């Protein structure tokens, strides 16, 4: 009988791949059963999907007759790509849209690269000068040929609506949130009513209202473009949601922050701009980006008032007699594009959340 002090390792079955499998997938009989049914589910879903999207799909050709394989007919997307990305925007003017994309891309990359200086200036440029460039470049003026908004469409229109909605609704939302928390009863009541009305109704009725009621509100002769009406609707709608998010951040601020800034003699606006808002907005960044994702997804609704956004145009090209019967391809493509955008936003928000998690 030798008593050794040699450490006895865990049984082989608890180590490495086997151990992991045993612990996470087959720890007892019903877990094994669950694993097997999960595997079966994946087996009936994944292979046919991969076959349809990639292996059996048609990528080369120019008409529907070229789609000879069993799988998806991506030629459909390929042939309509201009419509899907730009709508009816005149082909010879497309460089203008691309130019705007390019500016956005460059400044976006600049903002994403860590440790670069003067990010504030780039941000200010994006928020103040860039919108002016957009209006001139996209709709015409200063020697550029005018392009009516009814020709705008596709992914481009979706980005315009979402972009305008996001950029304009944030300041309005912040003002509404401050108004709702104001000590002045009239201001607070008005802001509360405004917020609750917009939040209580579906976006689709807001858009119906924008397209049917706004013309009645305006004096004679003033006629807003359909796109602008939709933009106003989307803007107020998302501002109300953002206001509630921002209010959450304001409420989470410790009272001492308010008292301290008052003690050093800051006025209300300085206190808000320099002390309270920077901290409370930082706290709710994930929720704000969540609202942005919701706005982005909700832009698809503009098709009910006759604007051809990304989804609307895909629905529209599917009704082209030359390409009937390819709705699956259209929807899968649209879903993939939307998913990439939304997932990228939520990924970025998680990253930002980790980065901004200072102190505390």
């Amino acid at each position, binding site marked *: 009988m030798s008593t050794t002090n040699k450490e006895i390792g865990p049984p082989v079955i608890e180590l490495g791949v086997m151990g992991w499998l045993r612990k*996470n997938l087959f720890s007892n009989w019903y877990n094994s059963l*669950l*694993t097997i049914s*999960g595997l079966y589910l994946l087996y009936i879903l994944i292979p046919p999907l991969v076959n349809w999207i990639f292996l059996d799909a048609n990528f080369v050709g120019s008409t529907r007759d070229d789609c000879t394989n069993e799988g998806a007919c991506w030629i459909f997307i390929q042939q309509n790509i201009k419509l899907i990305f730009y709508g009816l925007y005149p082909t010879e003017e497309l460089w203008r849209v691309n130019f705007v994309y390019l500016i956005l891309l460059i400044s976006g990359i600049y903002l994403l690269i860590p440790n670069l200086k003067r990010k504030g200036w780039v941000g200010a440029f994006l928020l103040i000068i860039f919108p002016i460039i957009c209006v001139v470049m996209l709709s015409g003026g200063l020697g550029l040929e005018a392009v009516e908004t009814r020709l705008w469409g596709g992914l481009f229109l979706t980005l315009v609506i979402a972009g305008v909605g996001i950029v304009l609704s944030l300041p309005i939302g912040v003002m509404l949130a401050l108004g709702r928390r104001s000590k002045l009863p009239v201001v607070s009541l008005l802001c509360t009513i405004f917020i609750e009305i917009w939040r*209580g109704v579906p976006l689709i*009725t807001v858009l119906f209202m924008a397209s049917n009621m706004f013309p009645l509100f305006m004096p004679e002769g003033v006629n807003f473009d359909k796109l602008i009406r939709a933009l106003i609707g989307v803007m107020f709608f998302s501002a109300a949601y953002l206001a509630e998010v921002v209010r959450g951040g304001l409420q989470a601020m410790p009272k001492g922050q308010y008292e301290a800034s008052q003690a050093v003699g800051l006025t209300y606006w300085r206190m808000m701009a320099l002390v309270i808002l920077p901290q409370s907005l930082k706290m709710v960044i994930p929720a704000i980006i969540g609202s942005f994702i919701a706005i982005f997804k909700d832009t698809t*609704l503009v098709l009910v008032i006759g604007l051809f956004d990304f989804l609307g145009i895909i629905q529209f090209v599917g009704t082209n007699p030359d390409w009937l019967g390819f709705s699956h391809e259209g929807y899968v493509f649209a879903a993939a594009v939307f998913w990439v955008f939304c997932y990228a936003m939520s990924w970025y928000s998680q990253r930002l959340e980790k980065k901004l998690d200072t102190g505390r």
Partner: protein
Amino acid sequence: METDKSKIGSFIFNRSVQGAFYQLITLGLVALGIYYIVTNTARNMMERGLASGFHFLGVESQFDIGMTLIEYSPTSTYFDSFIVGLLNTLLVAGIGILFATIIGFTVGIMRLSSNWLIAKIAEAYVEILRNIPLLLQIFFWYFAVLRALPKPKQSLELYDSFFLNNRGLFIPDTVFGEGSSIIFYLLCLTIIISIGIFIWAKRRQNRTGERFPAFYVSAALILSTFIISLAATGFPVSFEYPELKGFNFKGGVKLIPELVALTFALAMYTASFIAEVVRGGIMAVSKGQTEAAKSVGLKQNLILRLIIIPQALRVIVPPLTNQYLNLTKNSSLAAAIAYPDLVLVFAGTALMQTGQAIEIIGMVMGVYLFLSLFTSLIMNLFNRTMKVDGER
């Protein structure tokens, strides 16, 4: 002089005076804006020959609706079409909420599973579904799936009683024969008695500590009453199965494809949000609670029932109702696939015919607004009753 100046100064810089001043300005601006809009609207409406008011509600609508839960024909009034639309909205919201809850809770619990594969499948479900616009999902189920189904003759069937084809989903209908009302009343009575048993059992347990199997007793009571009364009245409740007659199905309940697609998409989409709510709620119950419950010797199912679920529900219920409300509001997307809900019937067809934009949009928005405010009222009451003493 100097005292006068300082008096004026202290008047101008007085907080409450300033506040009143700002409020007056705000109120004035808002009133001006409203006045501007109202006068413009009045003039515009006069020019278009539109009479304001709700007289149009009593006028014959002269349009038909594809799916109605109450008697409706083109000779019915606009008010009837409003009710039809409202009921259709509530129907789709009700079914949607039921299925979204079932799927959402399942997926949410799956995400917390110790089984790696199951947790990952649930995560994939959530991440895919909630990042794709709802309208796109509705279009997918409607145009790409349901419209592409075979004709009635080649329907997909289940147990010879459920049929799915491009005309919709056909399910058996329950037929209540003579005497079924007695069963219904008896059932109501037993349910009331069971509630009484629960209250009595709880009081007795609080007083004496003795437990009473209230659940089993009342379940046995309800079931036995149901079966005995069924047998006594000679089984008056029967099912009517859909049958293929000619080119379409007769009998049973027909669910139009728009309804099926809309409910399906709404339930799947909202379930991905509910799953996150459920996961968050369960994770919010601290681990110490489970450990403490184990150490006082509670069994696993009792720990779940008495410790985890009540605490998790406190966290889950408010955001869950919010999701229910979202689902109800999102059901207005029905307009895009022509399911006759409130928005399509009333804010669409009726608005087009009468041109009464303000009244109609106002009524539709009012319905949704009422639903949201009512829900938040209930939620506030709920939060008040569920609040733990000493909590902020």
